[in-house]
């Protein structure tokens, strides 16, 4: 299983991006080996609307088993829910540390969006 972490940069040392839909990129981490790959999110970053929807689609298509981020809006949340991907919100710090916290069982999935829609 891969963990998708919203990130400001392209490594495990990078700072987690608090924004999900408009994160700079997603770091997909294998928690067992700590190997990772990076997916740029630049297209969604500049989308006029619906960035969260497409970001959720991106992480789902790349086979994420869980998402770790800062905040997740209602639309991204429903898409992730549809894809059966739990979301963990309210996390900050380095990508690496977020994954370690997850492995240590310190993080639990949220049961709803953490912020309101930008749209209404």
């Amino acid at each position, binding site marked *: 299983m891969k963990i998708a972490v919203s990130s400001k940069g392209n490594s495990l040392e990078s700072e987690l991006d608090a924004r999900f839909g408009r994160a700079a990129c997603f770091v997909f981490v294998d928690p067992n080996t700590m190997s990772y790959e990076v997916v740029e999110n630049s297209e969604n970053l500049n*989308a006029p*609307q*619906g960035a969260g*929807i497409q970001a*959720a*689609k991106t992480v*789902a298509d790349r086979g994420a088993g869980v998402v770790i981020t800062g905040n997740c809006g209602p639309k991204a949340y*429903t*898409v992730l829910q*549809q894809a059966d991907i739990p979301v963990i919100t309210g996390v900050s710090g380095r990508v690496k540390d977020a994954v370690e916290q997850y492995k240590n069982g310190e993080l639990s999935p949220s049961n709803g969006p953490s912020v309101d829609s930008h749209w209404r």
Partner: protein
Amino acid sequence: MKYRNFKKMIISVASGKGGTGKTTVATSLALSIGGAQLLDCDVEAPNSHLFVRPVFEGEDTVTMPVPRVDEDKCTLCGECEAICQFNAIVTIADTVMTFPELCHGCGGCQAACPAGAIDEGKRTIGTIQHGRSNGLDFVHGRIRIGEAMAPPLIRQVRSRINLDVVAVIDAPPGTSCPVIAAIQDTDFVVLVTEPTPFGLNDLELAVETVKILKIPSGIIINRSDIGDGRVAEYAARENIPVLMEIPYDRKIAEAYSRGEPVVQAFPQWRRRFAGLYEEIEKLVAGRK
């Protein structure tokens, strides 16, 4: 969308800055023309009716097309998602999700679907009311609370324009899409401003907008005896006529607060607004 092929003028009243007196000018101008039509296109906060006090004769719901997906026919090919520029439709897991509030109603997904799985649903964006008052034909739109897309509703309000009479459009403030929807393809834009730094800054933005739209314009300076002379200087520099100056007068403010149009409270202003209309007519005729 085309609004041309009319006989009578369509005059829009706009401003960069809010609260400069668009409604004061639009209502008084429309009431002094005689047999005119007033369309309040500030659908997010319509208020002309408070002054015109029309008897409403009808109300219509305005909708926009949104996709409706037949999951049994859908093959999850993703063509709908690929064509949508607004992320309003997405294939995820074994289903298609739609986000009607993001949809601009272009119909692209329906056309792109090879399985014929998408047909047209509806989303209500607002209402249009029409009525009459003092020989004035009145129309306004009112957007549904929470709805973000004003331009399609504004275009629907404008589709009610009666080409046989002069139409005055009360536009929303600012210079964004709803303003463009309200003023584009009108014959003349009256830009209402005030002689303050804010008024001037936003007037300049509005002037840039009407220049791009290639609509002739003139300026009305409201509360003209406050502030400074920089709006007048700007108008002279840009070669835009100052059509009228309305002083900062307590009596006008009192009439406004009672919901009385200036031309009804003060007969001398009726003559001035009738003169304003003649001036606009000349300016438009001179351009043709």
